[in-house]
């Protein structure tokens, strides 16, 4: 019962694209920031270091060499096998998410280079049903791991997810086992996997591939954990400590190697990739 799609503190949906307007109010410090300036600074608030949520396109722009991303398996699409219906049907949710995001599902995978170094790069997109992991996310990761393993390329996954996709029910839970078993094979064969945790990385995604990296890098302030804060609060009946499940908390408890500002992430990746 602990897989949560959205949590308090996480805005369920990006309300405005950060590049839409000219000015934007920072969610954290309420400062009005100039969009152009934000864009130059990797969509980080220059006043308070708040990392605005950005989509997969922007991560591709920020971390990868220009025009190097060659997308794989973009044709894979979710289907509503269970005819799942809550307030809306899953089919309608999928249609809506596709229309709104222009994506086919919550992850994009592909080959790319970073400073000329070839990698397999996967990036989740929270705007597609909360970055939830269903069959397509699991399958795309599995295939990306295969490519990385067979071609001896480093694997990078940028996670942004509320967890497993409830509308695919048990099949989404099984994606945890699917991705983990692929990564087991990848790791045994000497593959390098860098897992980047952004806001939020929770539940089923966190309890599978996101925590199976050789190196874990987290964006500052990102909510990272297993159970959602609301569920924990309800269970224990207490307020949660300040900074609970944030990137720094995970660093202090030994679950991430470093908290890295988005503006520095590409440089850190290059450092790690050239070390090998």
């Amino acid at each position, binding site marked *: 019962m602990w897989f949560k799609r959205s949590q308090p503190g996480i805005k369920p949906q990006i309300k405005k694209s950060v590049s839409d307007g000219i000015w934007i109010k920072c969610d954290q410090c309420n400062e009005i920031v100039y969009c152009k300036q934000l864009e130059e600074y990797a969509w980080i608030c220059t006043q308070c270091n708040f990392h605005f949520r950005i989509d997969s396109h922007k991560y591709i722009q920020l971390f990868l060499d220009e025009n190097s991303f060659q997308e794989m398996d973009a044709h894979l699409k979710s289907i509503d096998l269970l005819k799942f219906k809550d307030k809306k049907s899953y089919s309608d949710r999928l249609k809506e998410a596709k229309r709104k995001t222009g994506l086919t599902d919550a992850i994009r995978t592909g080959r790319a280079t970073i400073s000329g170094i070839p990698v397999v790069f996967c990036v989740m997109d929270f705007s597609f049903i909360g970055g939830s992991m269903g069959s397509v996310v699991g399958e795309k990761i599995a295939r990306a791991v295969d490519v990385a393993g067979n071609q001896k390329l480093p694997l990078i996954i940028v996670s942004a997810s509320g967890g497993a996709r409830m509308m695919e029910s048990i099949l989404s839970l099984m994606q945890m086992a*699917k991705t983990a078993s692929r990564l087991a094979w990848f790791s045994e064969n000497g593959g390098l996997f860098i897992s980047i945790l952004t806001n939020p990385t929770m539940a089923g995604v966190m*309890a599978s591939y996101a925590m*199976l990296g050789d190196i874990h890098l987290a964006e500052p302030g990102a909510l990272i954990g297993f159970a959602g804060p609301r569920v924990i609060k309800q269970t224990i009946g207490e307020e949660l400590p300040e900074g609970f499940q944030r990137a720094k908390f995970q660093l202090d408890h030994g679950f991430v190697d470093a908290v890295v500002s988005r503006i520095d992430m590409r440089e850190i990746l290059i450092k790690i990739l050239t070390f090998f």
Partner: protein
Amino acid sequence: MNVLEFESHLHEMEENIEKFRIMSEKDNIDLNKQILDLEKRLKTEKEAVYSKLTPWQTVQIARHAQRPVLEDYINLIFTDFIELHGDRRFSDDRALIGGFATLGDQKLMLIGHNRGNNVTENIERNFGMALPDGYRKALRLMELAERFGLPIVTFIDTPGAYPGIHAEERGQAEAIARNLCEMAKLKVPIVCIVTGEGGSGGALGIGVGNVILMLKHSIYSVISPEGCASILWRDGAFAEQAAESMKITAQSLKKLGVVDEIVSEPLGGAHTNPVATAKSVRSAILKHLRKLNAMKADGLIENRFEKYAHLGVFTS
């Protein structure tokens, strides 16, 4: 015995039969014919109810307070159990236990959620909601089994992994992720059985196997119906609808290919006859272990890998 709402009329019938019996003994009247008749009607009615259980009714049976728990199975079908404690890291989780055990003439490593049989035990065992320490203990025991060539049998019965501050501090997600990854690689047979509630990652954390069995009235899901309802319907009261939508029964999961075999339960559910239930569990496990024991390590790993590789639906 806790009476479930949808069974209340069956319970009344049972009480009537009992009354007739007492009456016939006390007043020395022959009511055998009436009793037999009532019993026949009860059986027919029970069969009718149990042949068309709704998912929500199944949830209630799966969570029934008297449903057999791991300790019952240990007492009923395992001839010995040498419990091994602790994760060698931090603590000994009481919600998830394990140790050497023998089933028939099969020596094995038994691991399972441990809910307890009464409220005191439930509390002591945290209702079967394990900490990361539990998952790490399970992994330690599984690796121990692998070194000595013992097959692994896991009993799954948990509302979910424990959602608490310490669980997060000690890396609940990492502990589960690690188990999924390591279980994929183990060189020995793994048979998992969901006996009650298979609650999401907390279930899967000991649930990666060559064969996945489910008791007929157990459930297995990505999130509890209540949790699903509170997120998607924004109201936990829609749990019944969520249970319908999520396809959480053994029958649905068998169709989806997640479960390999459904293990039968006595009419009226496992709690009405734990001995018979345990017997079915025993023969199902032994049957699959016999097949898996014939496989080599590589074959077992390949078999597990392929099983999960094929789970999921999409168009391409």
